[in-house]
């Protein structure tokens, strides 16, 4: 089926634009960049139709990549139904966002660089999704991290952007610490990294080993998918251009952790402790990030914390054994969150770079298309039936209720908060009076068209794509439960959130401020994101930096080691200068030394003689 064509096409786009794009016209750059991704999407569709039912994974082996000792890793791609879902999301949403970027980036410098990096990202993301073993997956995993770094720091003359890029890369590397160790464990204890072999052997391995592997993989997933305690890089990552936030930091890359843990289900089902940990990390992150989202004023920051929170939901699904529900939410979230970001990009574009909600307002008349499409995403994420978010979130919450009721209730509260902060942002941006100074204008059709498609998907994507049904044969089945009351409660929570937002920001605009003033301490704490960044800085970054500078470099290296080395040198020189006194050039002193030496020699010889004679007797 030539699966390799799927990632190679964007790679070719990257190489062409990267090497020669500087001399290309914008039209040519667009043709190469968008052409390669759309072709890749087309090839995905052709592959899917060609493969038919896909009851068993379809694998292609290209060459042996690493073969050493007990390690044998091929460059292999495989497609099963899970891969199909991911391929469609990545290339489909990817194509839309590429098209949108034509309009968004039209006035930015480094146009070819932007599209080259975006294509490179598509290459690595597709490698990640197509991989048939953990190491090839890791190639994509690291590669998307690199592209994320490059694109967060796209405006590289701004320090906060490059700082955010570094932070993203390094925090992800901390997660990769876990991922790499998990890989070593698998090679040593399961003897392979191929998905097929690992999953076949996993049931035979000890629970302790599988739990360790599962937890280490989870650490990797926490880095990539921005879960507690490694979520800190994602909000900062919003420094990148908005299409990047939509593609990489909402729809695709950050969901790689969910994909990877769901893919590893045969390991997790035999490691219940690790699975519980996933669910707990997920629900904790979902709740925690949602509370921060309540108080943010930067429109992109609101959606960034929302992403962290929604990713938490997906992990709850995986951790509760509802793997397909987690993937379902991944898909619907890709629709509505990409739309929210692209929509806010359209707003920012309209306001010439303004991102602060306090300087917006009343935009629904000035940018009606953006308003309408974003509204579709808002009702979807709020979990209002029958829109897409409702289906997947409901499936996850049901599974959570089966797993542990408290998770369900925490999830419901989070759902209410989600509806609140999303509609708060919507009301602040689009309702009331305009509070800014820029002359707002609607975005060009090339940006509106992708918004419209995503809006349609956000509305009907839930019942159009029944992902759990499609993946039913792949994952272990969960006990069926159709508890209407649980569903009603979560929907009610969503509606309550919307209503409260309406009350606070449309009906009685002064209410929010007086509430914030009343709870000043709490509000400041949440507004400043619980000071987690400051905490990490004080607890990790500063000790490492100061310890390295003061203790290791100045103390150990320059002081102790070099001090003693130079000390040896100095002592040798001192000894030499003492000995030099003997070389005075004065004949009398030499004569004295000769005499002294002769005496010593004679005494020694006599002593030896005596001892020898004595020994002979």
């Amino acid at each position, binding site marked *: 089926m030539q699966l390799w064509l799927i990632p190679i096409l964007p790679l070719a786009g990257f190489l062409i634009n990267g090497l020669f794009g500087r001399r290309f016209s914008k039209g040519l750059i667009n043709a190469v960049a968008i052409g390669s991704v759309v072709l890749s999407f087309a090839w995905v569709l052709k592959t899917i139709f060609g493969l038919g039912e896909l009851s068993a994974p379809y694998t292609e082996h290209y060459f042996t990549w690493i*073969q050493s*000792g007990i390690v044998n890793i091929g460059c292999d791609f495989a497609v099963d139904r899970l891969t199909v879902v991911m391929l469609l999301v990545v290339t489909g949403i990817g194509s839309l966002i590429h098209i949108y970027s034509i309009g968004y980036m039209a006035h930015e410098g480094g146009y070819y660089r932007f599209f080259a990096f975006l294509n490179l990202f598509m290459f690595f993301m597709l490698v990640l999704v197509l991989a048939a073993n953990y190491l090839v997956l890791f190639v994509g995993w690291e590669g998307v991290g690199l592209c994320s770094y490059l694109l967060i720091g796209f405006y590289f003359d701004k320090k906060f952007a490059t700082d955010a890029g570094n932070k993203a890369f390094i925090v992800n590397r901390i997660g990769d610490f876990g991922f790499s160790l998990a890989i070593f464990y698998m090679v040593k204890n399961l003897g392979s990294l191929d998905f097929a072999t690992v999953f076949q052997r996993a049931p035979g391995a000890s629970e302790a080993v599988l739990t360790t592997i599962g937890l280490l993989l989870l650490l990797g997933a926490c880095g990539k998918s921005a879960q507690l305690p490694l979520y800190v890089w994602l909000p900062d990552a919003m420094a990148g251009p908005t299409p990047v936030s939509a593609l990489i930091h909402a729809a695709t890359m950050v969901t790689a952790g969910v994909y990877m843990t769901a893919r590893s289900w045969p390991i997790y089902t035999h490691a219940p402790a690790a699975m519980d940990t996933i669910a707990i990390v997920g629900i904790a992150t979902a709740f925690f990030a949602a509370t921060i989202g309540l108080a943010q004023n930067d429109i992109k920051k609101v959606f960034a914390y929302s992403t962290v929170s929604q990713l938490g939901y997906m992990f709850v699904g995986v951790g509760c054994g509802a793997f397909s529900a987690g993937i379902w939410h991944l898909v619907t979230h890709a629709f509505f969150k990409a739309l929210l970001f692209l929509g806010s990009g359209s707003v920012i574009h309209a306001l010439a770079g303004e991102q602060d909600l306090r300087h917006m307002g009343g935009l629904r008349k000035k940018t009606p298309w953006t308003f309408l499409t974003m509204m579709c995403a808002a009702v979807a994420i709020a979990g209002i039936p029958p829109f897409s978010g409702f289906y997947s979130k409901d499936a996850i919450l049901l599974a959570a209720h089966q797993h542990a009721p408290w998770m369900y209730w925490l999830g419901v509260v989070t759902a209410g908060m989600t509806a609140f902060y999303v509609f708060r942002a919507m009301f602040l941006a689009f309702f009331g009076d305009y509070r800014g100074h820029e002359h707002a204008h609607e975005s060009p059709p090339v940006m509106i068209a992708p918004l419209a498609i995503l809006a349609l998907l956000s509305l009907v994507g839930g019942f159009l794509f029944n992902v759990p049904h499609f993946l039913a044969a792949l994952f272990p089945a969960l006990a069926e439960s159709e508890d209407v009351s649980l569903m009603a409660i979560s929907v009610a929570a969503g509606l309550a959130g919307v209503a409260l937002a309406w009350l606070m920001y449309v009906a009685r605009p002064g209410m929010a401020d007086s509430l914030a003033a009343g709870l000043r301490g709490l509000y400041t704490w949440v507004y400043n994101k619980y000071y987690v960044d400051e905490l990490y800085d004080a607890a990790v970054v500063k000790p490492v930096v100061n310890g390295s500078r003061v203790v290791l470099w100045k103390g150990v290296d320059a002081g102790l080691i070099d001090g003693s080395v130079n000390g040896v040198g100095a002592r040798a020189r001192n000894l030499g200068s003492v000995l030099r006194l003997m070389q005075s050039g004065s004949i009398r002193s030499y004569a004295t030394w000769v005499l002294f030496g002769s005496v010593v020699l004679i005494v020694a010889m006599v002593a030896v003689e005596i001892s020898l004679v004595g020994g002979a007797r």
Partner: protein
Amino acid sequence: MDQHLLSIVLLTPMAGLLVLLFLPAKSKNLIRLWANLASLAGFLISLPLVSRFQTGVAGFQMEERADWIPTLGAHYHLGIDGISLLLVMLTTLMGFLSILSSWNAIQDRTKEYYAMFLLLQTGMIGVFLALDFFLFYIFWELVLVPMYFIIGVWGGPRKLYAAIKFFLYTLAGSVLMLLGILTLYFQHFKQFGFYTFEISDLMKTDLTLGMQQWVFWAFFVGFAIKVPMFPFHTWLPDAHVEAPTAGSVILAAVLLKMGTYGFLRFSLPLLPRASMDKTIVEILAVLSIVGIIYGALVSLMQQDWKKLVAYSSVSHLGFCTLGIFSMNPNGIAGSVLQQINHGISTGMLFLVIGIIYERRHTREISEYGGLGHVMPRFAVIFAIAMLSSAGLPLLNGFIGEFTILQGAFEANRAWAAFAVTGVILGAAYLLWLYQRTMLGQVTNGKNLGLPDMSFREVAVFVPLIAWAIWIGVYPKPYFDILRQPVTEIVERVRPGYFQAGGQINGGQGPGARGQGEAARSARDISKTLRAERASFPRPRPAAAAGTPPGPRPPAPGGDR
């Protein structure tokens, strides 16, 4: 010429040097041209080594042997195996590229400079080819002299301090190593009644464990200073900072590998029992890990661009020694590969520094910033060098680090866990360096008019980038070349390792998938491994009597 290929490779730079001596010192361009041609010839002439090398053949190939000083038992004995092949190729390529990069950088005493480089080239190749300890020692010491002058004459402001420090440090190590060699030499005489420096003969000497340990530590000091392992590393930053660009490149890319090569070629095969001594292995592994983390942390704090890269070498070489002392095929193969990788990526990083130093004559990081605006080509090349050094998949560094860490993990999980933190820190110091020099706005007016890289400057990097991608994407030929020598070393140090199931699925190519695998369930495998861990480091008793003795033939890969 075929039977003398190794001698030809060894002596080509020397021949170039002889001609160079007769060129008039004033015609600098002629001298430059000649030195470039000679070193290019040195590289081209070494290419047939690759095509004539037979993968999977035991022992040394293309051997040349002649009596030299019969009364001492010293021979002119050259030979090549997979490990030395890769290192020789690295030497000839890096030698050529560093000479090429010196075209504008060296303006005074040009003739002497190139003469020193060609002499150095022969010395380094000799180190990797010699199979006679006497010959080896001559080359080992020969390398010291030109490097001393390169640092001391063409170096920076504190060049004398750095050169003397370099010289004394390494000389102190070599003297102890000489004592170790002589101990072996006389012990061999005691047992066999004739004097020889032939390594294959010395390997037959039967030493008590105590004697092996003492010789091991004597060798250790010599090699560890060269590598350099913590805490013998403090000569390195000074030498690097003061050396001219090409000197730093060769120092990092090739000279340091003499130490790791020494461990692999001499310490392990000659002193197998000491090498497997539990205390020794643990001390060396811990020193390696300390080197990895310590080097990275200190690197993080450097204000001097070159010093930063120098400390990163300490960290990277820590991976190489950790691989060696994992004492299993992955660790050792990964170590050799990482030695090559470090040569490529750190070589590139020093070349990068050289380019900017030629323009600004400062290495203070704070003098730079925003260079990406002024020198876009330079920014791309620096980025690739940085990513290769940081171990990004599909570039060379990842393959080496992964294999080493896998090997370390097989030996001891904790080692791998600690060493992986070096990978995190590696990203930190490199990205931070890149941010401070290349990104942001141009804050220093002096950087505004800097010219981007010229064609010659880009040309120096092209082969290195190509090599980095090749190793990253298709490293299989390298593992194939290394399998035989690595198997021999492991078999020598841990007799019976391969019979004991150390190689779980080494023979499992994609074509062989499914056969025999199902027979051995995963639980069996982990049980075997647990048993093996328990008996580490003693050789296994004949637990698996059914398997044939001797090292396994190279794995039948599916796509062969």
